[in-house]
């Protein structure tokens, strides 16, 4: 029951957050003169009449509160508005671009958590070993590498040489899982590594530090003294306690993840929500950008609720109430 109450409260505050973000985005974008938008759309040699027509067609001549009302009304019905250019509904556009983004996020997060935690745990249990030193250097380099540099270098040293030598499994661009899982993996493997690399470095450092601290605890000595196997001591007693700060860091990182997604999509030409939004900026396609901002906010809110639930499961001291 406590969980139900917690969920309801978090979902309600989440809706408020999304509403605030949507309102902020709306007024931010529509605070600028409508003429610029219309000028862009109507082309360079447009007469004032044409520009006025464009403004009227887009509903930009109405008072801003009326426009805001229409916007909110549409939002409640799951309608994010229409693209300025082809009048396509924004939600269908974004839905089409969801698969590459979802593939990227899913694989990237799995890879980064698995790699980060595994290396972190091995490093902590064998502190000062060769492996630990090596992973520390790798972590430092990973932390200093911008996402797009990793992507560009992977293309340069992996993708280009392999394809020049006729090994064509690894590709750029996007191909869905419906074309075969092998093809999908081949297209996604470099983007996954790129997205995971920087974050894996953060999580390696965090989990290594936390686990080292935890393993210095008295209750770990007690567990060893009881005669528990080393594996049990490390995983049941050590890792579980060390994981809680890692999970709470995850909630903070979800927002940064979206930034990484935009960059990785641009590097590998995956299409996807991020790349479409960046393109929408060049064309001043405001409804598409607002749509992306709202979806991003919703994603962050939902992810944080999930993180808090996992957190409570891991750490019995946290009460959901």
């Amino acid at each position, binding site marked *: 029951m406590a969980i139900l109450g917690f969920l309801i409260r978090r979902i309600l505050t989440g809706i408020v957050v999304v509403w605030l973000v949507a309102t902020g*985005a709306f007024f*931010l*974008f529509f*605070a*600028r003169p409508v003429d610029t938008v219309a000028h862009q759309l109507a082309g360079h040699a447009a007469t004032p009449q044409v520009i006025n027509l464009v403004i009227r067609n887009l509903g930009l001549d109405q008072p801003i509160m009326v426009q805001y009302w229409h916007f909110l009304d549409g939002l409640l019905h799951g309608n994010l508005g229409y693209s300025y250019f082809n009048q396509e509904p924004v939600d269908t556009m974004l839905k089409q671009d969801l698969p590459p983004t979802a593939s990227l996020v899913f694989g990237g997060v799995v890879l980064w958590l698995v790699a980060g935690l595994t290396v972190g745990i091995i490093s902590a249990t064998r*502190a*000062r070993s060769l492996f630990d030193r090596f992973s520390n250097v790798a972590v*430092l*380099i990973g*932390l*200093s*590498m*911008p*996402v*797009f*540099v990793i992507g*560009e*270098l992977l*293309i*340069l040293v992996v993708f*280009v040489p392999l394809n*020049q030598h006729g090994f064509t499994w690894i590709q750029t661009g996007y191909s869905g899982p419906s074309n075969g899982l092998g093809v999908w993996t081949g297209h996604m493997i470099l983007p996954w590594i790129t997205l995971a690399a920087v974050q894996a470095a953060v999580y390696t450092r*965090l989990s290594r*530090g*936390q686990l*080292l*601290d935890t393993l*210095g*605890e008295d209750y770990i000595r007690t567990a060893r003294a009881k005669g528990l196997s080393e594996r049990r001591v490390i995983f049941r007693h050590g890792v579980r306690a060390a994981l*809680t*700060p890692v999970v*709470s*860091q995850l909630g*903070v990182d979800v*927002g*940064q*993840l*979206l*930034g990484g997604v*935009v*960059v990785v999509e*641009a590097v590998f030409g995956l299409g996807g929500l*991020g790349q479409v*939004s*960046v393109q929408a*900026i*060049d064309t*001043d396609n*405001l409804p598409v*950008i607002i749509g*992306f*901002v709202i979806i*991003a906010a919703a994603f*962050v809110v939902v992810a*944080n609720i999930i993180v*808090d639930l996992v*957190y409570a499961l891991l*750490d019995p*001291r*946290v009460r959901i109430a």
Partner: protein
Amino acid sequence: MSVTGLEFAGQETAASEGALDAGAAKVEGRSQWQLTWRRLRQDKVAMAALVVIGIMILLALLAPAFASLTHHPPNVAFPNTGEDAAGNPVGPGTAGFWLGTDGTGRDLFVRILYGARISLFVGFVTTAIGAVAGVAVGLMAGYFGGVVDTVLARFTDAVLAFPYVVLALALAVVLGPSLTVIMGVIAFFSWAAIARIVRGQTLSIKEKEYIEAARSLGAGPFRIMIFDILPNLLAPVLVLATLYIPTAVVFEATLSYLGLGIQPPVASWGNIMSDAQNFYQTSWWYVVFPALALLITTLAFNLLGDGIRDAMDPRTERVFAAGRGRRKRRGKRQVLADGQSEVSHVAPYVPPAEGS
């Protein structure tokens, strides 16, 4: 952080076995900054990083000199000497182009130097803004508490969780991409992490007796914050700021790479690498050199930041005495762990005193 200079001086001379006999001869009080600098000087990695940063700054300042030395202004294309017959960039060392040319036959070396000017300028300025703003917000939230704290702390959390690329996208649309806009965006995200740490430290410092003493002498809240609390916070803020500079540099490069930052023809490491995308097959130098410049810069700042953190942590003193490295890492992590505990949802877990 409140260990006095004299205690340090005694430990250090004992630790480094006569190497500092000047220090032993006349015992004088040393400020924490002097001590930090002494310890930092012994850290070879940090000093190397400092030298690298110095060279980078020098190269950036001398960019116009290199441009006139090579007779290759940054934004001038040399279609005759700078491109081969197929119109592709020429490689490093050809026709007086030290690192080759870019896609339109401009000197890559000169452009990377001009990119360094932008990167370092953005890095230092935004970090300075962020540090001042972060300290102000953190101090106010921590000192006043109550409603002020709730509002400021929630706002800080919101900023930390907000996807920066999304906001940069939004602002690039509204205001148009420019140096001012990206510096605004970067500065907007830079203060939150500092504010969070400063708030946590302020919360504990304001309960100390000397603050109570200051208050009973009639000092106002702002006097207490600036003269009594702030000096104790400078160490962690300096570490955080050093570690934020590379983040800001990467930030600028990423935005420029996406076309939301510095606009061509002005050179930035990000937009050079973005242009290089079309020349993977032919011109490796076009990608590799700007990437290296970026990597070397961020790595140097990260290493220096770690070094300063070690040098400022009183616990590392014992490390030098014991000559063991493992303790050093413990001490280093402690600062991080303190910061993390602010994030966590439960009361911060307090590690046991060292000594086992």
